[in-house]
């Protein structure tokens, strides 16, 4: 499978905006792609397979993997795969000391990021603070949470800070659920898309200071645990991604487990929790969508000011994704004739979507991460006086396939998790398989949407 682009929109948007304003040397892995420092032009290679066929193949791959999963109808086998785990480290002392070291590291990194972003050189590619946040943290570290395991509770510098601060311990209003985190996630993505937070170091420092103030105030009022469990979007994102990962922690034990098996324990999976999962899936899509030609034509046609159109589209797309999933759950209830409520079905099946979200994230950020990693390493050696030229890696041609594969692997995992969930909920084997029809249709819709975005030519977001 090949498409007309190398990375996702956001990826290249950021690479391009980062490259602007600083001398960059492209280290070209493929000589044929030698376009000097212009990364944008390297992205538009000739199309080997037409887009419609890429989309159709992606959709069919999801459908075919559902058919494959449906051949496994042995309940004990499914349950055994889901609950398999092997303890690796079983020592409270080791974990506690490890956590302390990691916490200290988190504090140091936050201090360095804040200092360099506000005081250091303001060219994006030369600023260690900006590169650390976008390349090291949002691309690289996030990947580690779903590929390895969630270490954010230990690393999170705000959690470390909040522990030494007093807490008023007001009781958190239960009916709010994780809605504050959901709204905050959408808001953060809105800021990321419309503001210069991705290429202006001092602006980034300002955003971090605002986030720090809000977070510490929140933990002061409601207590550390309550705040990071319900209101903080970043901790929620990493917690959710961490459940896709092959390593998990349960008190004093770190175990190797079936990837995605911890998704079943997102409890109590409330209605707001479902909204958060869908929001996480949608924001990665939205991030790419705003620099497609389609978005540009929408902006040209719709007579709404740009400042209103972005949040409007963000919320509308979220609503569409949410409605599609609720519709699937209602259809599933009709098909199976089950007495389980639609709300319960939505809650039980939504967590499987997190595997898809992780696949999207990898597809969107792997190329970006690899290409800018040398820049991060170079700038880290001299944060306040970085070399005038930094090295960028240009991914080879086949690299676009890795992104597409990540999306498909995410779907395979999601299908398996949903399959195991269905066999846990429904007593009939055929009933369990049939319950998945509408969810698979929705997954095909999500896949084809994100593959379509990956295959669109890059335009700068209006």
């Amino acid at each position, binding site marked *: 499978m090949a498409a007309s682009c190398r990375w996702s929109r956001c990826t290249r948007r950021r690479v391009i905006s980062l490259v602007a304003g600083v001398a960059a040397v492209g280290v070209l892995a493929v000589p044929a792609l030698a376009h000097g420092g212009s990364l944008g032009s390297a992205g538009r290679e000739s199309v080997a397979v037409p887009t419609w066929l890429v989309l159709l193949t992606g959709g069919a791959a999801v459908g075919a993997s559902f058919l494959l999963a449906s051949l496994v109808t042995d309940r004990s086998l499914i349950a055994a795969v889901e609950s398999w785990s092997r303890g690796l480290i079983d020592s409270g002392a080791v974990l506690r000391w490890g956590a302390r070291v990691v916490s200290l590291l988190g504090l140091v990194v936050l201090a360095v990021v804040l200092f360099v972003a506000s005081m250091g050189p303001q060219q994006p590619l030369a600023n260690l603070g900006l590169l650390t946040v976008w390349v090291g943290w949002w691309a690289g570290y996030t990947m580690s949470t779903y590929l390895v395991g969630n270490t954010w509770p230990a690393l999170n510098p705000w959690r470390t800070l909040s522990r030494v601060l007093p807490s008023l311990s007001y009781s958190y209003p239960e009916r709010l659920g994780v809605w504050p985190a959901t709204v905050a996630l959408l808001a953060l993505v809105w800021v990321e898309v419309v503001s210069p937070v991705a290429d202006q170091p001092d602006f980034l420092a300002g955003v971090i200071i605002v986030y720090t103030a809000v977070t510490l105030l929140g933990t002061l009022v409601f207590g550390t645990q309550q705040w990071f469990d319900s209101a903080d979007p970043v901790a929620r994102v990493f917690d959710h991604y961490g459940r896709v990962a092959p390593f998990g922690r349960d008190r004093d034990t770190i175990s190797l487990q079936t990837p995605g098996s911890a998704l079943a324990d997102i409890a109590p999976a409330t209605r707001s929790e479902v909204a958060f999962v869908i929001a996480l899936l949608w924001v990665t899509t939205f991030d790419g969508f705003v620099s497609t030609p389609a978005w540009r034509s929408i902006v040209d046609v719709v007579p709404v000011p740009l400042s209103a159109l972005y949040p409007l589209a963000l919320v509308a797309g979220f609503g569409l994704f949410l409605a599609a999933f609720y519709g699937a759950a209602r259809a599933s209830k009709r098909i199976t004739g089950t007495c389980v409520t639609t709300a319960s079905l939505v809650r039980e099946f939504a967590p499987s979507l997190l595997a898809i979200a992780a696949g999207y994230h990898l597809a969107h950020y792997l190329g970006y991460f690899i290409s800018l990693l040398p820049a991060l390493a170079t700038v880290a050696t001299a944060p306040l006086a970085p070399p005038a030229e930094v090295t960028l890696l240009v991914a080879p041609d086949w690299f676009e396939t890795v992104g597409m594969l990540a999306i498909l692997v995410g779907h395979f995992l999601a299908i398996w998790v949903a399959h195991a969930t269905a066999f846990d*909920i429904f007593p009939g084997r055929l009933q369990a398989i049939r319950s998945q029809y509408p969810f698979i249709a929705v997954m095909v819709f999500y896949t084809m949407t994100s593959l379509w975005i990956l295959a669109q030519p890059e335009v700068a977001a209006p």
Partner: protein
Amino acid sequence: MRTERLSYDDGSDTAVCEYCGRPFPDDDLLALHRGTRHFEQLPDDQQAAYEAAYADEQESVRLFRLKALGGLILVYFGFLMVYAVV
């Protein structure tokens, strides 16, 4: 696990499991549920009902598997041909 936190429609009392109180749309599904969740506790007639329901279902599961395999083969060769043409 999951089944303990499920909620059910009001007034769904067509076939209710006497061991855990879960409601089901019909007796076959109830029999399958009893067998998969409470097999050790079941009296002989309920064990027999489970085995009968399971055997009944086995036929349709087998048919579904055939269809699924057929579908997979169709998709595989369909795409093989489309890719050969494009």
